[in-house]
């Protein structure tokens, strides 16, 4: 068993961290531990009492003024937070509306473009004399018509004379 810590060393332990040897002794010696606890307890009690006493002696008017100031600050901070929230909400609303409007506009532009393309296609189709699919038929009809006319002319060469005779 190591000898008890000197009273000065116990005071030292309250001022700063103790060395390893002293701490080890404190852990195993209830007497030294109790002495340190008594001293630190007395100082702690004093600190607690001093704080309470000081709080009681602090001017109520000053405390009240400071509390009001604190309240003012809090209300200002609350107003600022409210204003910021509103601004952000408005910004989000505006952005959302703008985004939707822009989307609609883009869709409309795309639709009108496709409509225009369709109209152009229809115009092109209509402006043709006959649809492309009918081209072979048209050609066949026009060819047969011209050959029939030639045949007629060959088979009835007096048709004009008959008319003259009837007259």
């Amino acid at each position, binding site marked *: 068993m190591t000898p008890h810590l000197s*009273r*000065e060393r*116990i*005071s*030292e332990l*309250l*001022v*700063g961290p103790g060395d390893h040897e002293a701490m080890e002794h404190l852990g195993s010696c209830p007497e030294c531990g109790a002495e340190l606890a*008594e*001293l630190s*307890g*007395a*100082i*702690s*009690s*004093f*600190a*607690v*009492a*001093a*704080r*309470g*006493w*000081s*709080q*009681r*002696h*602090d*001017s109520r008017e*000053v405390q009240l003024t*400071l509390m009001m*100031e*604190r309240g003012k*600050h809090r209300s*200002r901070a609350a107003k600022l937070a409210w204003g910021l929230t509103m601004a952000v909400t408005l910004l989000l609303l505006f952005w959302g509306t703008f985004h939707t409007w822009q989307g609609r506009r883009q869709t409309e532009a795309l639709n009108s473009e496709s409509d225009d393309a369709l109209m152009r296609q229809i115009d092109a189709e209509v402006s043709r004399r006959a649809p492309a699919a009918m081209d072979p038929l048209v050609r066949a009809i026009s060819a047969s018509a011209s050959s029939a006319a030639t045949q007629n002319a060959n088979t009835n060469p007096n048709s004009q004379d008959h008319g003259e005779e009837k007259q």
Partner: protein
Amino acid sequence: MAQAADTELDVMPQQRELAELEDFTALVVRHRPSIFRFLLLSLRDRDAAETLAQECFLRAYKARDSFRGDSKASTWLMHIALNLVRDHMRNRRLQFWRNTQAASAGFEDLSEYVADRRRSQEAALLAQEQVKAVWAVAGTLSAKQRTVFLLRFVEDLDLLEIAEVTGMKEGTVKAHLFRAVEAIRKRLKGES
């Protein structure tokens, strides 16, 4: 355009002042209790403590531009408060009033604040006696020892912070603190 720039220049310092003032009010709200407590315990005079607490914040407000944030605001304010205590102690004209106030301030009541329902009556009485003893010893300490003792055990500052507040070296702070604690221990043990 030039008119707008002039208006802007006029408004900007005002806004800056207001912003600093708002921060400063928060600073006062936060630190006034500890500053007042330190002044009250150092001077043992409520009126002087209140006056010096106001003076402390006034000085801090005037010198706020010079505060560069190298140390904590609490340490900076405590440093100003300590200088005020020193000035107050040096002022011989107030010596008489200080003694009178100290005698009539009713510091015996300090032990009443120890009351704790969890403690037994015997333990509470013992604690009150101890508080009285510590308070009595604190009154007999040198100004430096008392300052260091209050900053360490009431304001919970560490040794480096105390060194910063007092302008002493850490070793010197330790030595003063040791002497203060020794004086208290001796008184509690009835050695002195």
